[in-house]
């Protein structure tokens, strides 16, 4: 057995892996990051190329992985015009979310929403008799949330964010002030102040609250006890990206890199002598000592070209091995290696946030199609007694008008042979009053929602592709029905919005149709992939302990959103980042 060459070998060059590497390298530890994908967007010329693709390839706009190229050696789901699908399904329902395997990972295309989970999300069983409790509480994770907010660069005002028991230490402020509120936000805020909606368990206020985002806004001079904060600009171009300047596209990439992506952390890591980053290296198997359970090596396939074809098998050795490749890729690697699964939970409890849009016309112009995708939401239904019987949800106010617009309206108007000044006028009249709300619903951990592998389904390098089983439980569907049939009409009434929502059948591309109590709903995924290697207090029903360390192996950590026991209604990246930092602290303690 050859001696470990690195303190830690990290599988995955996304936000989780980058943050672990950051903590370890800051303490002088040696780290190897193995990234399955290409360097891609890390290179400024390639970044510009992706941006041009966004302009010239109409079909890729609005798709999370729009301009990113197909890589047969490390395929990602959701690449437009891919020669073959990456997911296979064991169920009629499909898992609707995708991710990106490239240096920087899914944070290249994420929206940047950085919400914390609320305290009850950690104790669903105790509070509502649903799901399970986490082995840690909000209080336990709070310090790591602050560190994640520092690293990602989150813009919010604490005064807005104290609800449902979310607390901050005395004197804490976010690195940057909240993103300026859009006219859409102002409109709904005015309409809903003081209003409430009746749900199971009582009246719930409808409050419009700014969304914390990892996107550059005005630094708060009070940050870090008056040290202040320097907004991190674009990688390799300090004159770009110090502020969101309203390019109106965040996904699939921010034209100026005002939005955080893991590239910003990786840029710092790349300058450290104890950090090595290797791209085009797909981890394929963990080598395990049968007696001790130690991971003695990470076998990976180092390919020359993204088209697939030639590759070399190499092995990396580390004192510690960290899987940070995302909840699905961590799973396929563990299953392929027969690792960490005495509980049988690896791959199980796959969760996403089912997502649904409603839309209409505001009575007066609110001028959408400007600014970030969303700057505020109705956040006051993220918790409450109704969680005994149905899912909680949050409602993002959309700043970009209705989906597939203005294209649909133009086609409609041209279909009526409206042209010229009349077309210009009528289109502007409609566009300036388009409001849309995106509801995001929690799912409970369900063992049969899972990721498995099958020797029949492998990619060109011979690695396992994920096989997915997925469904929506009544708990979520009941929440969806409540949002669509009670909450949205209530909001529309207070705001005097003319409801234009129609769930067309069959569902359009990117949506899937679900019928509940006789009504059809068109659902998307949120891009949130959670739960497949959850933490717990017992090795019997979880994959890792409360520090993201695998129960079954003395030197294996599995980190990311896969550790989450429940999904709540928070976009998972901030939590995944906090968990990664927490895990890295435990790793440092071990390495001492």
């Amino acid at each position, binding site marked *: 057995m050859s001696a470990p060459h690195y303190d830690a070998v990290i599988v995955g060059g996304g936000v989780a892996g980058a943050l672990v590497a950051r903590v370890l390298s800051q303490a002088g530890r040696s780290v190897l990051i193995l990234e399955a994908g290409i360097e891609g967007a890390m290179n400024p010329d390639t970044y510009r190329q992706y941006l041009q693709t966004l302009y010239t390839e109409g079909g890729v706009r609005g798709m999370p992985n729009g301009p990113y190229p197909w890589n047969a050696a490390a395929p990602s789901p959701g690449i437009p015009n891919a020669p073959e699908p990456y997911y296979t399904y064991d169920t009629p329902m499909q898992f609707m979310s995708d991710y990106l395997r490239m240096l920087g990972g899914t944070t290249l295309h994420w929206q940047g929403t950085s919400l914390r989970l609320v305290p009850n999300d950690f104790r669903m069983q105790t509070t509502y008799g649903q799901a399970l409790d986490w082995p840690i509480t909000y209080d336990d994770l709070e310090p790591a949330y602050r560190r994640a907010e520092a690293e990602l660069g989150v813009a919010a005002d604490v005064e807005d964010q104290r609800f449902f028991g979310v607390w901050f230490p005395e004197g804490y402020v976010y690195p940057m002030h909240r993103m300026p509120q859009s006219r859409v936000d102002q409109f709904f805020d005015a309409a809903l102040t003081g209003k409430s909606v009746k749900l199971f368990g009582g009246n719930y206020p409808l409050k419009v609250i700014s969304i914390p985002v990892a996107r550059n806004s005005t630094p708060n001079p009070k940050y870090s006890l008056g040290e202040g904060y320097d907004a991190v600009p674009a990688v390799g171009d300090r004159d770009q990206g110090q502020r969101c300047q309203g390019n109106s596209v965040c996904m699939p990439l921010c034209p100026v890199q005002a939005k955080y992506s893991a590239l910003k952390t990786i840029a710092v890591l790349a300058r450290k002598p104890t950090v090595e980053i290797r791209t085009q290296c797909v981890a394929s198997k963990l080598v395990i000592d049968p007696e001790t359970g130690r991971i003695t090596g990470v076998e990976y396939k180092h390919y020359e070209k993204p088209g697939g074809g030639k590759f070399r098998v190499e092995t990396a050795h580390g004192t510690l091995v960290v899987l940070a490749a995302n909840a699905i890729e961590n799973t396929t690697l563990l299953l392929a290696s027969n690792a960490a699964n005495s509980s049988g939970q690896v791959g199980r409890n796959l969760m996403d946030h089912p997502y649904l849009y409603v839309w209409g016309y505001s009575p007066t112009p609110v001028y959408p199609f400007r600014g970030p995708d969303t700057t505020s939401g109705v956040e006051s239904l993220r918790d409450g007694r109704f969680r005994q019987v149905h899912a909680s949800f949050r409602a993002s106010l959309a700043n970009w008008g209705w989906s597939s617009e203005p294209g649909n309206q133009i086609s409609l108007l*041209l279909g009526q042979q409206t*042209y010229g000044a009349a077309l210009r006028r009528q289109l502007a009249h409609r566009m300036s009053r388009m409001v849309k709300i995106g509801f995001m619903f929690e799912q409970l951990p369900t063992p049969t929602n899972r990721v498995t592998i099958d020797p029949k389904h492998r990619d060109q390098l011979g690695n396992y592709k994920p096989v997915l089983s997925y469904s929506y439980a009544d708990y979520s569907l009941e929440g969806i029905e409540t949002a669509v049939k009670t909450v949205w009409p209530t909001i529309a009434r207070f705001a005097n919005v003319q409801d234009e929502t129609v769930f067309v059948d069959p569902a359009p591309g990117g949506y899937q149709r679900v019928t509940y109590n006789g009504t059809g709903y068109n659902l998307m995924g949120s891009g949130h992939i959670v739960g497949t290697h959850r933490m717990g207090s017992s090795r019997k029903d979880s994959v890792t302990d409360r520090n993201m360390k695998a129960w079954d192996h003395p030197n294996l950590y599995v980190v990311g959103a896969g550790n989450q026991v429940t999904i709540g209604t928070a976009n998972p990246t901030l939590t995944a980042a906090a968990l990664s930092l927490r895990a890295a602290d435990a790793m440092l303690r071990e390495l001492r």
Partner: protein
Amino acid sequence: MKASAKRTLFLAFSAELTGYSETDLEGTGNVDSFLGVLEQQTGAKAMALFYDAAAAVLQHGSAAARAEAMRIDVLPSPTVWPMCASLIMLWYQGFWPALAASWYSGVGSPKPKGWSATQKIVPSAQAYTAQLAYRAAGAHPPGANPTGHGSWSIDPVFGDNVAAGLQTRLGEGKSS
């Protein structure tokens, strides 16, 4: 017809069809490119009809008379109107939507190379960034031209609401 005359007619008729001035259209830098797309996608026969229709409409001085000419000569034409509709889409959304197979057989012209019914031709990145659809509403195509940090919290400083003097009070909006 000389190339410069064609261009002049194309520009004037595009202004009539889009509701934007010739100067606005010149400012996109796409006039020559879009004329090229129109010619290439429709062929000489259809273009002759297009220019005739354009001249017939534009000979009238008043907007009302031109609208009447459009109603009589262009809107009912199974050849010319679809060309106009695709051209309007090209100006408004930066892509040329394919004309139907039946249009080509109706005109008696061959389909252009690479034609498909669901085709959306984007002639250049500039066609995308200069889309007219957003302008009147005080916005820009996604990713094209930023409007400035915080600009979304105030009314647009350009667009038809501004031009018409109907702008509501400009100011830093505040939510609670």
